[in-house]
């Protein structure tokens, strides 16, 4: 297929240095385009994704190069759409978060093959979004944007605000007006503009997609719209880290939350790349997707055997997963079916129970998205769909401090006592 030249804010696409990224390719029809701030295929509207000239040669050399790199996502720079000197530029340096061996949780769930939690609450703004924004920032620099923007369910707004502040960009981000207070404060504190939209996330997303085609949005880099092909690649680093932290091996089973579905598809892409590069042994793995019952369009399609995802109007406490019209839903279905995994959903009550379970067993306070993921893992283990005798990784994408509202009604002080020992004993606490 011919490589088309697209208009960019630089003089020529040839001047764009995004490391091993060589082109954009349509995931639907395969049409290829020069690297640029575009996200949908001109031929079929399909999503564009980054194609690479990945390193060739001895896998052992590449492994050593990665292991001697910085303890953040830039150790994987040879596999990402970023310039080689990315680590020297001002950014939040996210990643290389803990892979927690969750033995207490494993005992509780009856898992004998090993259970790990990839805890991305340890990122600079306490969610996995720092990974994807770090890629988008490099693309924004390459294409000459000076304003960063996004549609967000909260976590992304904070990640964009923080990264823009560090990197010297203006930011103006859009969120549903009724988000959790923690996420609003965390998005606003970095000094950029934060705009509440009267509607749900899908309304916000639609607004941003229209703004991008309007003169009012000219020169803006929307990390999850016109920079989305680059942005999405950041989720591959979750796959790289999980495998490296497991001793350069694939997990047997991995449970991932689904909002747009991008993260799940890119974790799969990352795992496949490691196999192709010879960095891990090629063996089967299963991918499981997690949704909240109140926003479960992908789970519903999976269970019904459909290839098409019918949009829903979200109604769940898991607001960071409340995307009723998930852009990558069809690909999530393909991947979960191809690998022998599944997509499942849990109720809001099960989400809260799972948040408390993880906190009680492992000392990790996850947000509602993580509660959804663990809740689904538990449900699938109990149903015999996830094999407890195999290695399993559950991805925790964010920090519970951002969604205190979800657990506050059922979590609090055990007792209020007077400051003396008699009162302590009377309360039955001795």
């Amino acid at each position, binding site marked *: 297929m011919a490589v088309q030249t697209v208009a960019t804010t630089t003089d020529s696409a040839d001047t764009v240095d995004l490391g091993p990224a060589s082109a954009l390719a349509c995931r639907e029809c395969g049409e290829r385009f020069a690297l640029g701030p575009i996200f949908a295929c001109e031929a079929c509207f399909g999503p564009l994704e980054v194609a690479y000239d990945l390193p060739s040669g001895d896998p052992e050399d590449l492994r050593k190069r990665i292991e001697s790199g910085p303890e953040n996502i830039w150790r994987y720079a040879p596999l990402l759409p970023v310039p080689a000197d990315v680590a020297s530029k001002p950014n939040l340096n996210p990643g290389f978060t803990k892979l927690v061996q969750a033995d207490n949780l494993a005992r509780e769930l009856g898992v004998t093959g090993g259970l790990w939690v990839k805890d991305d609450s340890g990122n600079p703004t306490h969610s996995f979004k720092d990974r994807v924004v770090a890629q988008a920032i490099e693309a924004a620099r390459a294409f000459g944007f000076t304003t960063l923007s996004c549609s967000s369910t909260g976590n992304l707004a904070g990640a964009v605000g923080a990264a823009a502040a560090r990197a010297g960009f203006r930011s103006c981000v859009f969120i549903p007006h009724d988000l959790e207070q923690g996420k609003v404060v965390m998005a606003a504190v970095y000094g950029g503009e934060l705009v509440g939209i009267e509607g749900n996330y899908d309304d916000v997303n*639609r607004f941003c997609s229209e703004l991008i085609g309007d003169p009012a949005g000219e020169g803006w880099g929307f990390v999850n719209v016109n920079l989305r092909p680059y942005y999405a690649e950041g989720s591959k680093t979750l796959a790289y880290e999980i495998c490296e932290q497991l001793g350069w091996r694939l997990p047997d089973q991995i449970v991932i939350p689904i909002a747009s579905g991008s993260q799940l598809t890119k974790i799969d892409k990352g795992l496949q790349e490691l196999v192709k590069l010879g960095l891990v042994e090629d063996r089967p793995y299963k991918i499981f997707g997690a949704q909240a019952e109140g926003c479960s369009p992908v789970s519903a399609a999976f269970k019904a055997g459909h290839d098409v995802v019918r949009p829903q109007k979200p109604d769940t406490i898991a607001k960071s997963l409340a*995307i009723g019209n998930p852009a990558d839903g069809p690909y999530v279905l393909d991947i979960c079916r191809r690998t022998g995994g599944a997509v499942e959903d849990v109720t809001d009550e099960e989400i809260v129970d799972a948040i408390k379970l993880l906190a009680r067993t492992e000392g990790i306070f996850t947000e509602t998205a993580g509660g959804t993921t663990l809740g689904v893992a538990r449900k699938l283990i109990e149903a015999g769909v996830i094999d407890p005798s195999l290695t399993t990784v559950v991805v925790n994408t964010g920090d519970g401090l951002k969604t205190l509202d979800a657990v506050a009604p059922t979590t609090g002080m055990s007792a209020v006592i007077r400051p003396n020992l008699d009162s302590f004993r009377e309360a039955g606490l001795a």
Partner: protein
Amino acid sequence: MSVNVRIPTILRTYTGGQAEVPAEGATLAEVIADLEKNHTGIAARVLDDQGKLRRFVNVYVNDDDVRFEQGLETATPHGAGVSIIPAVAGG
């Protein structure tokens, strides 16, 4: 019925660069057929080989996603705004 159709950037090669164009029709299907008359080739970008909306295209009549309404048979009242938007954003 006359409506205004907002055209996404990637389809503006068919509309001479215009971001908004008028079209006639009582339903979305009729509006797209009218667009095709004046901007040849645009319908094949929005509809697949079976004549259905492509899966990565979202269309709104005023503020309503037509997938929650009657799809291509969604009514397009006089003066309505129709927006065609790539669906691969967000997340």
